[in-house]
């Protein structure tokens, strides 16, 4: 009976053109990314994913001697998709938080960047306290640390959540939003490269350790501790031999490595 069911499942799988992923022995590692986060990851005109985390991820794969593939996945579904086995690692500017640790395990932190508010260029106020932003519309990406931060501290503002970070930026540029909360490097990239000076950075927020955690790490399924260990080893190696600095130098003026 069991054999028969097994056969049916396998036959179904084959009929649907599904390839069983290689078991345990890691030869290929599939990266999941939300490619709407330049300069960390975005899509170029050919549809390929480019950015700091792609270059860095490739460097890690070289160290680990595995082939890697990169998949684009909307942020809202990125943890469910990892858990559902649609890829093996989330390598997408995901901050290491207690909330997420309930679902996934993280590698060591591999970068930490300032977080803050952007506003329209015409807005001259530098006060971004919850009182000052009362009744103002603030946009950010849903299911992020930024969304959680706004929910905790900016209860009296009109918080709008978007599927990607690009979308609140567009709405800030058009004036639909008064403020956007996000990674300041991403906001700067948008303002300089796409926003045509529409907007400006207002200031950096103080990290709330409960919400923000120490920085960004790679996330894995809880069972894949071996893969996490491989990543940790590779991260340390790229730190030691200068590869990390070489790659980040291509994208950033200041070091983002963090401690």
């Amino acid at each position, binding site marked *: 009976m069991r054999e028969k069911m097994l056969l049916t499942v396998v036959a179904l799988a084959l009929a649907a053109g599904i390839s069983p992923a290689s078991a345990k022995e890691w030869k290929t590692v599939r990266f999941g990314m939300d490619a709407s986060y330049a300069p960390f990851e975005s899509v170029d005109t050919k549809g390929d994913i480019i950015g700091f985390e792609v270059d860095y991820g490739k460097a890690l794969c070289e160290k680990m001697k595995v082939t890697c593939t990169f998949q684009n996945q909307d942020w*809202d579904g990125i943890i*469910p998709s990892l858990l559902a086995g649609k890829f093996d690692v989330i390598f997408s500017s995901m901050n290491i938080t207690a909330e997420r640790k309930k*679902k996934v395990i993280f590698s060591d932190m591999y970068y930490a960047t300032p977080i803050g508010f952007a506003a329209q260029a015409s807005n001259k106020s530098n006060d971004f306290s919850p009182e000052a932003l009362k009744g103002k519309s603030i*946009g950010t990406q*849903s*299911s992020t640390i930024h969304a959680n931060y706004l929910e905790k501290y900016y209860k009296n503002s009109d918080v*709008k959540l978007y599927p990607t970070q690009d979308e609140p930026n*567009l709405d800030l540029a*058009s*004036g639909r939003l008064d403020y956007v909360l996000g990674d300041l490097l991403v906001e700067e990239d948008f303002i300089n490269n796409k926003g045509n000076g529409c907007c400006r950075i207002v200031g950096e927020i103080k990290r709330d350790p409960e919400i923000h955690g120490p920085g960004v790490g790679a996330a894995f399924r809880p069972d894949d501790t071996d893969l996490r260990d491989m990543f940790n080893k590779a991260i340390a190696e790229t730190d030691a031999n200068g590869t990390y600095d070489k790659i980040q130098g291509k994208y950033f003026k200041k070091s983002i490595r963090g401690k």
Partner: protein
Amino acid sequence: MLQTAQDFLSFIFNFDLLQEYGWRLVAGLKITFEVVTISVLIGFVLSYFVCSARMSRNVILSGAAVAYSTFFRGTPLLCQLYLVYYGAGEIRPFLTDVGLWWFFRDAYYCCIFTFSLNTAAYQSEILRGALSSVPKGQIEAGASLGLSTYRIARHIVWPQAFLIALRPLGNELISMIKASALAAIVTLLDLMGQTRFIFARTFDFSVYLYAAVIYLAIVELIRRVWGRIDKAFSRHVIAAAR
């Protein structure tokens, strides 16, 4: 095996979740209800004009009506919504000049605007089909009785067309309820929006199933009530057919 079954059951039902986030689903339902009701009503009024334009002898008018309904029925609603929502953002200076920016600034109005235009296209086709299915002889009969054009329309054509249109209009209402879930993608916290919000917080799959049950209940309710209404209005027709 029992463990798996239990595991799977908790994957489907999670009542703690409902306790903590249930109010969000109710709030979302209210937004869905508003958006759909307003859009369908505006669409109904608009569809009358589109249909009249379509059936007019003026080539430009009828051509414009054909183009309108081809566009709105031939492209995905999500694409139309993006076009209105993000397109309005792009032409903000112009919209500010003509004093319409306050309207397009709001995701709520953008959704109602897009949904109304979309459903108007579908409803106008329903109306046109119904009107043209009234036999020509009926109109001629009215004319031979010396009735004015208005009275022919009011007492002969429209009542019959309305009866024919009733059922497809009900179907259109149902498809609007289902299509309104797209509003979530442009930040509106309708039923689908709240569902996505809760899922983003909890990664608990059961919230999608709760949303499904709610949508299903509304749609089934409307289907049944509409069926009753349809039956009540067309009682004499059935009697005549006997």
